[in-house]
């Protein structure tokens, strides 16, 4: 009733291949973009940006990156935190070494560097599979964090061992450093998010995506059919690393401003992003957004309800949060392995028929 797809005919294969083949979806998508770019920036304040919007946007990019690796290519990685750290430190070194180049390019190059590092740690995926590989990626996590902690070159020999984002501008407007405006940082990240989602969608609907999914669903058959497993896996690691690196760079430069590697990019970060894509939906770009939104909002809601309204101690609410997140993960794996994205699809199905049950 509210959601129609009948009468929406395609007359060419290129139309049939669109990201949103159904008109009502397409309109909705443009509307969301319009609001995100033209309305939201005027309604923001510092609290909203720092508590919700920036983490949501940045984690969305990380989730898209990890989803390509885990959800599309079936290679489970527990090294996301470490790879985000690569992005952050690469961005920091670039920002301090080449201060004249626009930060926009720093972030992209940082993503590229992370992609390369990711490929190096992804090479063993040719020999080892499944949770063997998952555990192997822990090597990346711990080694990288140790590296950034122990080798002073990475933090420019600063006394604290931290890295601090210098002030940088885009079109004369500051996006990093202490004196940023909420709307500027928001828009800066939003551009990256939209571009990442678009690229990820293009890749996953084309031949590259099909090769990834073939490897995920049945790697031996995929190889016999003609998928080069080396190329498919390595490209998944590279693309995934690229996005994760960008999110790490933004996380450091725009969101936190100052980073201590063990704290910001520890193993818990790896799990957080993994949980986002499980809850959001493995193998779905929309799911990456849904999962990121969910796990960014959950602690905020819990804090508002638990600490502010009920007056419970903070640490107890934090423990409660662990219980809830862990429980949700199990619940989703049991009830809806395709996550929030699938729930959304089911809802759309229901809306299409509403008010009739069948």
């Amino acid at each position, binding site marked *: 009733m509210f959601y129609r797809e009948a009468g929406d005919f395609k007359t060419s294969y290129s139309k049939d291949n669109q990201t949103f083949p159904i008109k009502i979806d397409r309109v909705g998508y443009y509307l969301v973009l319009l609001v995100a770019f033209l309305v939201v920036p005027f309604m923001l304040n510092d609290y909203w940006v720092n508590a919700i919007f920036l983490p949501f946007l940045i984690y969305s990019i990380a989730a898209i990156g990890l989803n390509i690796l885990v959800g599309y290519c079936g290679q489970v990685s527990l090294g996301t935190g470490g790879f985000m750290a690569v992005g952050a430190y690469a961005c920091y070194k670039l920002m301090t070494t080449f201060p004249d180049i626009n930060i926009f390019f720093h972030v992209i190059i940082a993503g590229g560097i992370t992609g390369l590092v990711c490929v190096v740690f992804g090479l063993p995926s040719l020999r080892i599979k499944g949770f063997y590989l998952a555990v192997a990626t822990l090597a990346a996590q711990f080694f990288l964090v140790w590296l950034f902690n122990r080798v002073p070159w990475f933090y420019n020999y600063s006394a604290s061992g931290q890295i601090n984002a210098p002030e940088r501008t885009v079109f004369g407007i500051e996006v990093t450093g202490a004196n940023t405006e909420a709307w500027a940082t928001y828009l800066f990240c939003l551009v990256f998010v939209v571009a990442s989602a678009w690229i990820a969608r293009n890749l996953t609907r084309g031949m590259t995506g*099909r090769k990834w999914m*073939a490897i995920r669903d049945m790697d031996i058959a995929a190889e016999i059919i003609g998928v080069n497993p080396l190329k498919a896996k390595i490209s998944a690691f590279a693309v995934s690393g690229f996005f994760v690196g960008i999110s790490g760079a933004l996380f450091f430069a725009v969101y936190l401003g100052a980073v201590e590697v063990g704290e910001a990019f520890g193993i818990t970060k790896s799990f957080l992003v993994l949980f986002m894509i499980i809850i959001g939906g493995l193998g779905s770009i929309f799911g990456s957004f849904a999962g990121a939104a969910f796990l960014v909002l959950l602690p905020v809601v819990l804090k508002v309800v638990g600490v502010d309204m009920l007056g419970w101690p903070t640490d107890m609410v934090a423990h409660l949060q662990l219980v809830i997140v862990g429980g949700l993960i199990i619940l989703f794996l049991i009830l809806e392995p395709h996550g929030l994205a699938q729930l959304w699809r089911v809802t759309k199905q229901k809306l299409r028929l509403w008010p009739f049950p069948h």
Partner: protein
Amino acid sequence: MSTQESYVTEDGRTIGPTVMEMKNITLRFGGVKAITDISFDIREGEIRAIIGPNGAGKSSMLNVISGFYVPQEGEVWYKGKKRPPMKPYQVAEQGIARTFQNIALFEGMTVLDNVMTGRIRQMNAGLLSQAIWKGKAEKEEIANREAVEKIIDFLEIQAIRKTPVGRLPYGLKKRVELARALAAEPSILLLDEPMAGMNVEEKEDMSRFILDMNDEFGTTIALIEHDMGVVMDLSDRVVVMDYGKKIGDGTPDEVRSNQAVIDAYLGVAHD
């Protein structure tokens, strides 16, 4: 053997020269010999069957052809050249496509995506072009989609195009798998028990598809099958294997009257 002349069959199809030849293949798993010293050839445009009782080494033979198993001894000649040791995906790139005994479809993907995956050989746009969905990637996608739609029409699976493969019944899955292999426009199509577990109607459909494929596209087909009636009707020539050895080779009529074959297989199975 490899310089045979082309000839025309009774039903008017042209059988060309040898396209693939297996020479003295021996395959061992540890101490077990799966295949012992087998030689045979496949000619262009023919339907070649490999038959034999369970455990005769038929599937192993197919796996050798598609590069999944590397034989300890023997040579594979393809299009007049000796094939160097290569990975399965390289064999596929040379134009050898196959289906699997236990259906190896990509369950998380739609029928369309599965069949499109078969066209890896024809699609090679760069990552960057694919990332922005412009230029070569877009053109390639549409051109190959057209080719795939033809195959989808041919195999009569239009209605399930956008259905995830995991939800399909067995018979349809077999057909989708055939579509995926056919989409590669292979020089040789290997079919591993294409009719296993099917009822009579489905078998009839599948036989029709195999014959049509061979007739319309001129596809060379090598197949393994248990159903003797089907094999004898479909194929131009038959290789018979037993305990990893070749015990017969020839037209269905020749094989039918071969005493070794009757003893080993036909006599037992069809009494």
